[in-house]
Structure formats: structure tokens, C-alpha cells
């Protein structure tokens, strides 16, 4: 029985990797416009993956936009006042935001569910308000320009930069999936008391996951600042950076790397194409699509595919066992 279920699993990653590589390199030959779209898709994809990595522990964050915006500001401030070179601002922002998240997480990770969610949302607002009011450092409501952007804005080079960053994020997410972290986070999500009784240090794992995912969000925010060369409180902390990755993850499917990936590609590309056909009112159709997918694919697209696989597997095993249960 176990050989039946093992075989497709072995083959799938190869097919997937080949397809992913194909898709990833397609924009390189397709020209600047697809590259722009792909950069935007990768941006949301990384945010979606990082959000998913934390929800694997059961902790619902509404603070993506906060760490994203903070990362953008860290990059801009680092580049302006400390002379951090463009590409290194990504690392700089990841570290700064990761440390901020570590300090905040140490206090707020005792919260659960709705309360944790609302505190992350409130924190995102507080980051925005501080950046907004701290005019001497951040340029206040007007925001600030970056002194120099990565690769001078070269379309291919910046796309490759985003691709590398996305590969790193996917790598970290897969590491989460295939290491002891996976067992720790899943156990915490399913039942904290059981997890603790199995020796899982809940606080340490939550703190690690929170700091790493926030750091990723910070790096993505920095990459965004590099792509467009500026940060402002209103655009950098836009609540869409929280809501859209969330929607993408749920559409693609939670608790894995590939759900967010599929969701981001689908919503990103669909959103861009829709507006070419329906210039006035495409967002209405976008909303309708979200509603319909949630209604008819409650476990997301990857979940739907998995469900099919599992059902077919179950029917095979059931016929083999001859209804032993």
C-alpha cells in the first residue's frame, strides 16, 4: 500500500520543478511588460508564502503590510543614511525587520487567534503612523526617494533579483516543510497542549517563525522600494499588501509552499488580464472571482488537486482492503 502512495509523490516534485523553472524563465524572453507583471506576482507570492509559513503554526497575522512597509523604510533609510548598497538593502531590511519582529514577538506571541491578528494589524498601523510623523528621518507624509536603485532599474536584472529572492523564500518555506519545524508548527496548530507534552518549545518555535516570516516580508518590502525607487507611508503600508497575499494563499491552498505560489500566479495574472478587457470595473469581476472560488473550492486549488488524489488513493486502498474498516 505504501508503495502505491509513494510513487506519484516522488515524481511530482520533478514535474513541478521543471514547470516552475519554465514559468520562472519565461518572462526573461517575453519582454519588459511580462517581466513587470512577473515581478509584481513574485512580490505578492513571497508575501503569501511568508504568511502561510506562520499560519502553519495557527497564528493568523494581519500585519504583512506593516513589516513590508517597515522593510521598505529600512532599505530607504539604510541606503540614504548608512550608504548600504542597493542589493544589500534587502538583507539589511530582513535583519532589521527580523529583529524588530523578535522583540515584538517576545511580547505579543502569548496571544492567540483573533487577538494576535488584531494586534498585528494595530502594529502595522503604528509603524505607518511613526513613519508618517517622524519627518526628520523619513520625509514624513511625502516619503523619501532612494538615492540609487538596484541595477539602475534594468528590467531583466531586477527580475532576476526578484527571482533569486523568491527562490530563497521558497527554499526557506520548503525547509520549514521538510524539517522538524514542520512538525513543531503543525503540532502547535493542531493542539498546543499536546505539542508541549511532546517536548515542543512552543514559544521558541513561534518566535522563530514570526521573526523569519517578518524578516522575509521586510526583505520583500525592501525589494519593492528598490524596484520603484521610493517609499511613502500611504503606498508602503497599504492594506492591500496584507489582504491580497491572504486571498492568494487561500485560493491556492494553505499550509504548503505551492498553494501560495499557484494562488499568486493565478490572481496576479488574472487581475492584470481582466483590466485589459474590462477597464472600468474589472475589480468587481476580481471580487466575484474571489467569492466564487471560495464557495466552490473551499480548500484552494492545491487542496482541490490533493483531494482528488487522495480520493482516488482511498478508493484503491479500500478496494484492496475489501472494506476492513
Amino acid at each position, binding site marked *: 500500500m505504501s508503495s502505491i502512495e509513494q510513487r506519484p509523490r516522488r515524481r511530482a516534485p520533478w514535474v513541478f520543478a521543471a514547470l516552475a523553472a519554465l514559468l520562472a524563465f519565461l518572462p526573461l524572453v517575453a519582454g519588459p511588460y511580462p517581466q513587470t507583471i512577473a515581478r509584481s506576482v513574485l512580490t505578492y507570492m513571497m508575501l503569501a508564502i511568508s504568511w502561510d509559513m506562520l499560519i502553519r503554526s495557527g497564528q493568523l497575522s494581519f500585519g504583512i503590510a506593516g513589516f513590508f512597509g517597515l522593510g521598505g523604510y529600512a532599505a530607504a533609510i539604510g541606503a540614504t543614511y548608512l550608504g548600504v548598497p542597493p542589493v544589500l538593502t534587502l538583507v539589511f531590511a530582513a535583519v532589521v525587520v527580523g529583529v524588530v519582529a523578535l522583540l515584538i514577538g517576545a*511580547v505579543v506571541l502569548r496571544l492567540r487567534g483573533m487577538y494576535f491578528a488584531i494586534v498585528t494589524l494595530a502594529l502595522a498601523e503604528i509603524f505607518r503612523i511613526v513613519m508618517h510623523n517622524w519627518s526628520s528621518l523619513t520625509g514624513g507624509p511625502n516619503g523619501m526617494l532612494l538615492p540609487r536603485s538596484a541595477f539602475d532599474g534594468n528590467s531583466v536584472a531586477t527580475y532576476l533579483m526578484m527571482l533569486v529572492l523568491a527562490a530563497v523564500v521558497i527554499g526557506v518555506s520548503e525547509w520549514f516543510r521538510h524539517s522538524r519545524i514542520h512538525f513543531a508548527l503543525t503540532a502547535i496548530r493542531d493542539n498546543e497542549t499536546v505539542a508541549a507534552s511532546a517536548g515542543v518549545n512552543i514559544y521558541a518555535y513561534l518566535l522563530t517563525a514570526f521573526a523569519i516570516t517578518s524578516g522575509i516580508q521586510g526583505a520583500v518590502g525592501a525589494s519593492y522600494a528598490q524596484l520603484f525607487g521610493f517609499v511613502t507611508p500611504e503606498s508602503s503600508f497599504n492594506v492591500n499588501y496584507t489582504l491580497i497575499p491572504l486571498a492568494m494563499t487561500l485560493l491556492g491552498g494553505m499550509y504548503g509552499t505551492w498553494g501560495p505560489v499557484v494562488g499568486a500566479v493565478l490572481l496576479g495574472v488574472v487581475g492584470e488580464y481582466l483590466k485589459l478587457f474590462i477597464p472600468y470595473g474589472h475589480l468587481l469581476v476580481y*471580487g466575484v472571482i474571489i467569492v466564487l472560488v471560495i464557495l466552490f473550492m473551499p480548500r484552494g486549488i492545491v487542496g482541490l488537486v490533493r483531494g482528488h488524489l487522495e480520493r482516488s488513493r482511498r478508493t484503491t486502498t479500500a478496494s484492496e482492503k475489501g472494506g476492513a474498516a
Partner: protein
Amino acid sequence: MTGFKRLQVALSVAAGIAVVALFLWRPTAVVYGLQRAGLYASIALPMALVLGIVHIVNLAHGEMMMVAAYLSYAAARALGIDPLLALVPTTIVMFIVGIVLYRLTISRTVDGPELNQLILTFGIAMVLGQAVNMIATSQPRKISLDYVSASATVGDVSFGVYDFVFVALAAASLAGLYLFLKKTRLGQAATAVGQNPRGARIVGIDVQRTYTIVFAISAALLGIVGTFFMTKFSIFPTVGGSYTMRSFSLVAMAGIGNLPMIVVSSVILGVSEAAIQAVPHGGGWSPLVFFGLIILAIMIRSFRGGRA
């Protein structure tokens, strides 16, 4: 549990003292703070009801209020009547909208992962906002009404009194919901469902029907709030969004399922905001006070009450 009660009492007393102190320093700040608290509470109460009983974070909450506001606006415009006369038809229409929305969409997500309801209501919010945008454009609308500028003068200080309708509305909503939940069979059933849906099902309560009605009541309340809202504020397709977040924050601050605490939290936030705005150049920091207080309240509760 008692720690939590004590905290509630302490918070209420602290709020009271702060209000008195502020009144002595700047009386109008208290007036405006209370008025603002009334607005916050009257919008947050329907969300608290849905969150406490149906256990849904309705991200379309503000958009539903926005739709209600546009309904009343359209009625007032088309019929040339005072928008407040549209209160009853709007409320009825919103009740029906609530039933339809619940039956058609939310009820179908009950079996899926919990977060799906969140994204579903996010999608609904988007659809409502965009639909109104297409029909009415993004241009703000506001009917000029004389009574909105009604003012009172005490000594040499003039201040607006119309906003006390929100205080009255919040009080009426709270009282109405309290009576509904404690004194009516349906309300008691709803409370039971809210505390333990499985248990309620076992004792023969139609859970889906209860959810539908609770959601519809919340929508109807938003019909009332939306109508009053549009008399005072400009309306535009995105006007509701910030009130969704604000209501959600208030509900979390009050503790899920705790309706009276919503009012206390609203007073704390409303008066604090008015207080900081009364300080010259304090306005820019007033959202910081709002979110800071919410985090503070949630953290204090978590340390006092432990994890729920």
C-alpha cells in the same frame, strides 16, 4: 474569569476618571469624545453580535454600512424626502440583504477552513464597493441638512449637538440587543448557539436559521447606522473600509462576545482621541493612541486572564 471582571471594572473606573479630568480641562473635548464613542459603538455593536454568535469576522461590515448609506441617499434624492425618513425602508432592505448574503454565500463556507469566511467577506466587500463605485462613481455625496449643524451654547462655548444621536443610537442598540438576547426565545437560542453550536444542535435549535437571523439583524442595524452616518458624513464607495477595521479592533479590545464592554471601549477610545486632538498639533498622533490603547488592552487582558 473574576480577574477579567475586575479588569473590566478597573477599566471602566479609569475611563470615568479620565473623562472627568478632561472635562475640567476642556469641556468640549469630552462632548466630542462621547459623540465619537457613540459613533464607534453603534457601528461596532452589530459586528460584535455577528462575531460573538456566528463567529465570523465580517470584513464586509463597513461596506454593508456604506451600501445602507447609499440606499438612504438614493431614496432621499429620488423622493426628495429627508434621509431620516428612509430609515425604515433601508433597515428592511438591509435585513433582506443580510438574509440573502448569508444564505447565498456565508452559509456555504461553514464546512471549509475557518479563514475562508474571512476571505469570502473580503471578496464580498470588494464586490459591494466596486458595484457602488460603478453605479455612483467615486465622487463623495452628501445631502446638506440644517439640523446637522444644530448647536448648543454654554457660557461662551458653542458646540454641535447633533452627534448625540449616535450616543442614543449606541445606547438603543445595546439595550435592544440585550433585551433580544436575554428575553426572547430566539435570542436565548442565539446565545446558546454562540456558546456551543454543536450542543445547540443537539437540543434541537436550527443553527443555520439562527445564524441567518443574527446576521440579518446585524445588517438591519447597519441599515440604521448607515442612514444616520450619511446625514453627518460624506459617503463614497470606500467610506466603510476604515470602520470595518475600527469595529474589529473595538471588538477585540472589548473581548469577543462582550457587548457592554464595546461601549466602555468606545468611550475610552473616543475620549482619548478627542483629548489628544485637544492638544495643539496632537492630531497626527491620535491614530497612535487608538491602536496603542487596543494593543495595551489586549495585552493587559492576556496577562491578567491568561490564555483563553
